[in-house]
């Protein structure tokens, strides 16, 4: 088809990219194949596994089901953008502490999803964490340690907020 490519602007991990995309290119494919940010993974490519989870304007979505062209102007954070100033994000540190991965393929999605969960502030119990992480599958079955890591990060975040009050 001779549909011309469409110019869009994406701010990814703080850097602006002006890029021409075909209508059928997904955000995931643009991030991986065009911007060479291969942290976000293509697992099922159907919105079922969550390995492609990124933050778009602060909210977690499945980038495999988003057309890049419809996200024109968005600010995107991928796993590559979670650390700041050489310091791991507290959730990344907690993942290491709790050995919250085996093969690691789902980890970028788990991290982006978990960072959003911490920001959303809706999880209060272990059951809430499990439920609100249900969109991220781990074929190795590292769920116990993943939930532990998020619980640790959540407790630290809550403790930090109480200390600040």
């Amino acid at each position, binding site marked *: *088809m001779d*549909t011309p490519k*469409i110019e869009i602007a994406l701010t990814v991990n703080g850097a602006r990219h002006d890029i021409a995309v075909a*209508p*059928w290119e*997904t955000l995931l494919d643009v991030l991986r194949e065009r911007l060479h940010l291969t942290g976000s993974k293509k697992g099922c*490519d*159907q*919105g079922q596994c*969550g390995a492609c*989870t990124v933050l778009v304007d602060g*909210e*977690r*979505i*499945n980038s495999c*089901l*988003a*057309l890049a*062209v*419809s996200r024109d102007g968005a600010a995107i954070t991928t796993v590559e953008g979670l650390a700041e100033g050489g310091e791991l994000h507290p959730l990344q540190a907690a993942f290491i502490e709790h050995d919250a991965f085996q093969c690691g393929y789902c980890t970028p999605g788990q991290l982006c*999803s978990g960072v*959003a*969960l911490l920001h*959303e502030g*809706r999880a209060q*119990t272990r*059951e*809430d964490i*499990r*439920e*609100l992480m*249900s*969109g*991220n599958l781990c074929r190795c079955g590292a769920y116990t340690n993943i939930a532990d890591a998020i619980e640790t990060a959540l407790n630290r975040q809550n403790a930090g907020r109480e200390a600040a009050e």
Partner: protein
Amino acid sequence: MIRFDYVRANSVAEAVTALSSPGTRALAGGTNLVDLMKYDVMKPRRVVDINRLPLKDISERDSGGLRIGALVTNSALAWDARIAKRYPLLASAILAGASPQLRNAATTGGNLLQRTRCYYFYDTSTPCNKRDRGAGCSAIGGINRIHAVLGASDSCIAVHPSDMCVALAALDAEVEVEGPQGVRTITFPEFHRLPADDPQQDNTMRADELITAVILPPADFGRNHTYLKVRDRLSYAFALVSVAAALEMRDGIVRDARVALGGVAHKPWRDKEAEGLLKGERPDETTFRAFAERLMRDAKGQGQNDFKIELARRTILRALMQAAAGTPQNQSDKVIR
């Protein structure tokens, strides 16, 4: 992924104009449409992106209800303070479905237009009347464990996959659509349709119409309600059977009752005649069992899904007991009490 043209609508009128040219589909969150385009199940020639339209507000209506813009995301709706307080049944049903990532992208209008999750509808190597009218139904006599037990036809036994719509059916919501002839409102029972001989048609909208809002009438089901969903996994799975129940109770007697079923038919299933059986009755097991029997009276299994009929009866009973007791199902702690 299929190849298609892309236009971006800057107004509802522009979107409606774009939709009037054949082969054009509206794109909102994309969580269902993009998936179906990847697998050649839906093949629009052109997509009109409606994400810039001003349909993202939840507003008060003069009559006391709420108007939900078609582009309000499932997350924004479920976590809205007004919804949580006045329509907790709706919030609960939304949170019983999909995942946080999907709910952040999926919209109110899009949820209504979800296509079935019938395996054969997705598998383009098999005949399917919903994809290709007249091709035949592979689910009839095939693998049909998840399929319909109510309202099915010889052409199609698919079920509607939405949780949100089951609650909207119970709440007597209405759907506002806009087309070239202007705006019209479709009642919820009339919006989705049974498959009959043309299962390719999921609803009664015309191709050149766009959903602009969902209207919630005033309701007083803040206390006696529940959304009870039974599925193969604890989370992130479509319903085998779900029940949205809302009761209005006074002096220990049921004054009004709304019960909608998900996972059992081509549309959210309600039977207002059967609901009449509950009015004026005491909210006890005997009453609820009789109601469940009546609601499932015409149910017909396809073999592998016969279990759904008894499962539905039991889920209806349990949901009504939860609603009557004012102890709605928790969507995080999945223990059914």
